[in-house]
């Protein structure tokens, strides 16, 4: 089996597993006064510092995951501002930015900065941009966008869920959303990093946890695991990914790679095989022991048409693209198995089409 669906979730890193298991044995509630509570609080604050050290500076608010971190920033900061969102943002952002204005991307999937600049002229705004796209891995020019926002007095929220831990993040933006399991931690924790003293209105009020920004007892094992994963060294996956793409181009010159020519995450490759339904490809590869994905998976498991590729002007070809995303522990053997399975699949499909 080769697991090449890291952008859905990274395999658990051993250091994250160890930290999470250690935290499971902490009896105390971080909010408790007594010694056990203080011991739990120490682990929580150490995790907070680790996240700030790695992705800061800023105040760290722990959440249940990336979706909640995005929602907290957008719903909590949008008051009195127009919300501007990139066309290829994640559904977590699009759903939180109800009534938002969509900013177009170019054919490579990069945000159109001139459109952002023009939209910023129309009054106070909250701009939501992802550092890296989940489907294509395409990186947006966050530093440039941040400069435009600063000049216009607008806030910039950065969805860094896919970029964190994979590329060095520019120290830009007023808030930053992170997801623990996308770093290689356990599922169940995320964080919102706040800069410049911003105070979003809480989505969930409660016992005053997270300085009143997020009610509810913190899920310490998931948070400790997330912090441990954040401190792990960044893998160098570009050579494997580039080799994978080069092999496929030799086998099948007809393939189209999304965001080709744009700066991309080093682990992500979105590959279209013209005429082959993405759904068929994902199933065929799964049956061959290779796990990839296509579009955005609904909770039912159905494969929906990609709004990202549609925004890039792909038309019909959008239905023929799969996403290969290498996990932190990917090996040359994984790539080899993928290439073999993909080539066999393509051969069968073209025999059938003939």
């Amino acid at each position, binding site marked *: 089996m080769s697991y090449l669906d890291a952008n859905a979730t990274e395999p658990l890193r051993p250091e994250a597993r160890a930290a999470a298991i250690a935290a499971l044995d902490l009896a105390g509630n971080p909010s408790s006064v007594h010694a056990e509570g203080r011991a739990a609080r120490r682990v929580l604050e150490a995790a907070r510092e680790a996240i700030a050290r790695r992705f800061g500076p800023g105040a760290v608010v722990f959440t249940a995951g990336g979706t909640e971190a995005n929602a907290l920033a957008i719903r909590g900061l949008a008051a009195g501002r127009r919300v501007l969102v990139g066309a290829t943002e994640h559904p977590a952002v699009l759903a939180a930015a109800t009534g938002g204005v969509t900013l177009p991307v170019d054919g490579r999937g990069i945000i159109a900065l001139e459109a952002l600049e023009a939209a910023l002229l129309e009054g106070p705004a909250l701009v939501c941009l992802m550092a890296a796209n989940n489907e294509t891995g395409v990186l947006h020019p966050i530093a440039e966008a941040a400069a435009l926002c600063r000049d216009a007095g607008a806030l910039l929220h950065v969805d860094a869920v896919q970029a964190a831990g994979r590329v060095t993040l520019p120290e830009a933006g007023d808030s930053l959303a992170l997801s623990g399991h996308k770093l290689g931690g356990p599922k169940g924790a995320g964080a919102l990093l706040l800069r410049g003293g911003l105070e979003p209105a809480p989505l969930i009020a409660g016992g005053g946890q997270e300085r009143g920004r997020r009610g509810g007892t913190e899920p310490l094992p998931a948070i400790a695991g997330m912090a441990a994963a954040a401190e792990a060294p960044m893998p160098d996956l570009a050579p494997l990914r580039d080799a994978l793409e080069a092999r496929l181009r030799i086998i099948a010159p007809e393939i189209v790679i999304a965001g080709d020519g744009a700066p991309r995450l080093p682990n992500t490759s979105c590959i279209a095989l013209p005429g082959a339904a993405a*759904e068929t490809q994902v199933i*065929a590869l799964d049956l061959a022991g290779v796990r990839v994905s296509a579009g955005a998976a609904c*909770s*039912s*498991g159905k494969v929906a048409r990609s709004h990202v590729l549609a925004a890039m002007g792909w038309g019909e070809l959008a239905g023929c693209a799969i996403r290969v995303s290498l996990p932190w522990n990917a090996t040359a053997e994984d790539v080899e198995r993928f290439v073999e399975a993909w080539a066999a699949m393509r051969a069968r*499909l073209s025999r*059938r089409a003939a």
Partner: protein
Amino acid sequence: MSGGVDSSVVAGLMAEAGHEVIGATLQLYDHGAATSRKGACCAGQDILDARRVADRLGIAHYVLDRENRFRDAVMRDFADSYARGETPIPCVRCNQTVKFTDLVDLARDLGCEALATGHYARRIDTPEGPALLRAADPVRDQSYFLFATTREQLAFTRFPLGEMPDKAAVRAVAARLGLGVAEKPDSQDICFVPQGSYADVVAKLRPDAAAPGEIVDAEGRVRGTHKGIAHYTVGQGRGLGIAVADGEERLYVAAVDAPRRRITVAPRTALPVTDARAGEANWLVTPPAAPVRAQIKLRAREVPQPATIAWDAAAGEIAIALDAPGIVAPGQAAVIYDGDRVLGGGFLRARLARAA
């Protein structure tokens, strides 16, 4: 795998027989939208049931998004057919397109050797190729809905429930295999109209079929107003809202005239005809060169009736001469049987207006 007991049992039987089984569930329409439940998932409970059965059996399972294909090939066809004044049969269209064309293609793309479905029908191999037969259980028989399956598709297909004596036997297998769906009630009616009226669905896609018009009798007298031709089918007696004079016979829908948006009514005795034609024919045997004696089934809930069948190759139509007059509703399937075997069939055509 619809999530119902039949296809679940099929998956279980195939897995038990040692095959590598891949479960496929078709997502045909947005369940949340169809039931008007705000915020409901696009997937209904049936899809989750199918996933649970697959998990229980330890087989791979995929949900296939066929919403667009289903809307175009089945729902739109359903509405268009009503707008032409016909009574469509969407299950046949679905079998013909989404199921036996697309799923057979996908199965072949994945390197599968056969497609097994939960239909109640039998498929046997003959020296001339595969034959489609009625199911052993006459109550459940679905061969009528499968007439449009091509011979090539049929060769690739298996119907493991065809020999089941009755539904109780199928439920018993589900219970034996520990499938949670063993006691699930049978699905009813048209799947994409889970509640409310099919006419509302038609009205959304074809507002013209929901526009009111005149109800006239055989003499051309206006007898009332109808609420859109989509609400009526030939042979229908209820819901016409016509006052019948003392001593006059009850009136039934005799014809639906779509261009004039008019319903013609007549006494029941005036409805049956002996001649009918069926187009879009599919033959599961070599089409007969000369008229043959056979039995023909003109609606789902009816036993096949003796008739003489002729193949009009030039027109691509089947000419039907019924021994005893019957009611012909355009749009319904006319399926030809020789005993248990399905020979072929077509879709009933509107009769030419009788010369007054």
